[in-house]
């Protein structure tokens, strides 16, 4: 256990560097500002124009926003290290590959959580105005966090495939988009196949969580998805084709 904590602490050293570089440059601010502008605009619209006191639109918006923003955060994760050659330095440090992957994931997760936590302001406003479904809101936030993490792992995987950040961004976007669309394509398929495809879709499980039902199956789905792309990333790094 102690060894594990020590290893995670080592990862955190890399995470700190990543976070610093998000905020030394513009990436971190741009992503946060646009995320807040867009969620704020939709929230304000429904509140002031449609007179509906709900945070539902934020939950509805999030998958789309993450689809655009998360790959922007993860595109550099391995692609840039590969391009500049620093990946070789990093992978000859006394660290395991998984510690490096975890570090990159933690950095993106922290940024996603910062973005998500800003939207809590809207929740407080709605709570003050009256009827809020606490269960659905909690479920929605858990869903957002898990969805963000899943996008981060997919984006990091995309970044491990190339040395070009733009390619990494586009690949990440496409992978996230495909998993988002899976459950929407289910009705077009034969029932037996459709069920499977629906179950594989990220949005299907996100919607389940948003209803306020925190089902182990949905949690397990996100855990497996992350594990799958995490292992695929590890496999790419192990090839050492820098």
């Amino acid at each position, binding site marked *: 256990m102690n060894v594990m904590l020590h290893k995670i602490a*080592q990862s955190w*050293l*890399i995470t700190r*560097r990543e976070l610093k*570089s998000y905020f*030394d*440059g513009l990436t971190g601010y741009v992503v946060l500002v646009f995320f807040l502008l867009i969620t704020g605009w939709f929230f304000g619209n429904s509140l002031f124009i449609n007179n509906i006191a709900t945070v539902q639109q934020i939950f509805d918006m999030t998958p789309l926003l993450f689809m655009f923003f998360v790959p922007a955060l993860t595109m550099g994760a391995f692609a840039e290290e590969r391009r*500049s*050659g*620093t*990946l*070789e*330095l990093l*992978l*000859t*440090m*006394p*660290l*395991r590959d998984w510690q490096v992957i975890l570090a990159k994931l933690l950095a993106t997760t922290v940024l996603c959580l910062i973005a998500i936590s800003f939207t809590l302001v809207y929740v407080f406003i709605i709570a003050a105005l009256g009827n809020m479904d606490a269960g659905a809101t909690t479920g929605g936030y858990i869903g957002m966090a898990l969805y963000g993490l899943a996008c981060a792992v997919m984006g990091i995987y995309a970044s491990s495939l190339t040395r070009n950040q733009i390619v990494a961004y586009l690949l990440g976007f496409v992978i996230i988009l495909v998993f988002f669309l899976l459950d929407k394509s289910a009705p077009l398929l034969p029932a037996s196949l459709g069920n499977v495809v629906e179950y594989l879709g990220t949005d299907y499980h996100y919607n389940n969580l948003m209803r306020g039902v925190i089902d182990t199956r949905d949690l397990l789905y996100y855990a497996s998805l992350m594990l799958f792309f995490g292992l695929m990333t590890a496999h790419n790094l192990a090839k*050492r084709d820098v």
Partner: protein
Amino acid sequence: MIEVLSLSKTYGTEPAVSGLSFSIPKGQITGFLGPNGAGKTTTMKMLTCFLPPTSGNAEIDGLSIHEHSLEIRRKIGYLPEQNPLYEDMNVYDYLHYTAALRGIEKAKRRNRVLEYGARCGLKDVLHKQIGTLSKGFKQRVGLAQALIHDPDVLILDEPTSGLDPNQKGEIMDLIRHLGDDKTVILSTHILSEVEAICERALIVASGKLVADGTMSELKSAFSGGQKIRLGILEASQEVVMPVLETIEGLSLHSFERQENTLMLNLTFASEPDIRPELFRLAVAQNWVLTELYREKVNLEEIFRLVTTS
């Protein structure tokens, strides 16, 4: 300290390193030479546990690269080819970061960075962004990075490539001073550097070891003996040669007459230096020497000889 046992690496079907074996004792500075594409970088990447070998093994301080990857990495300081750096960081932060990743205790990191920053001549640029530094300073940052955990083994892949002659000299001096008590392998194709600081040279070509030895060993092995140029005032070849031929192994290569001096080009098959004996002989014979010169064998010639055949 470093034992390499028939190490091989194949990229696809292309062999980069095939059956390389050598051993480097503790504290030696070894030059790793070879033409581009000879497998130097690949070998170094395997020693630093970055690339797994296709077959064979390497041991550093008795630890195998297959089983003790993390322990080996702790013992090694590595400067990869092209000296990759995080250009957006400043020198202090970067060295602090590598010190942390290298497992140096939090309380000691600051001092360590300042110490190695000073040793590598980075004192005045510690708070500059790495991307704005000149190539020579970047190379110093790379060296400081490789040294920050005071490793037993230093692996430097072309530490002077792309530098101007002054910077090259400075970097070589740094390596010589800082690598004093360390086992150092440095790859390069600038042979004068190897002659200047390495005790030993390993020459590889097409993934195989073609020459291995100290500088003087290599020179005598590949030069075909000592080449001596002898000038004797007012002498004739007919008189001189019979006397010289009393020295076993000495033979005449060519001779010429320059004004009143007889110039002889002699070869002597083995070591040690034959010049003292020649001098004593000349004194005994009352010859007036105008020249007694042993031709320096050029490492470049050896390099060309062993890597092109």
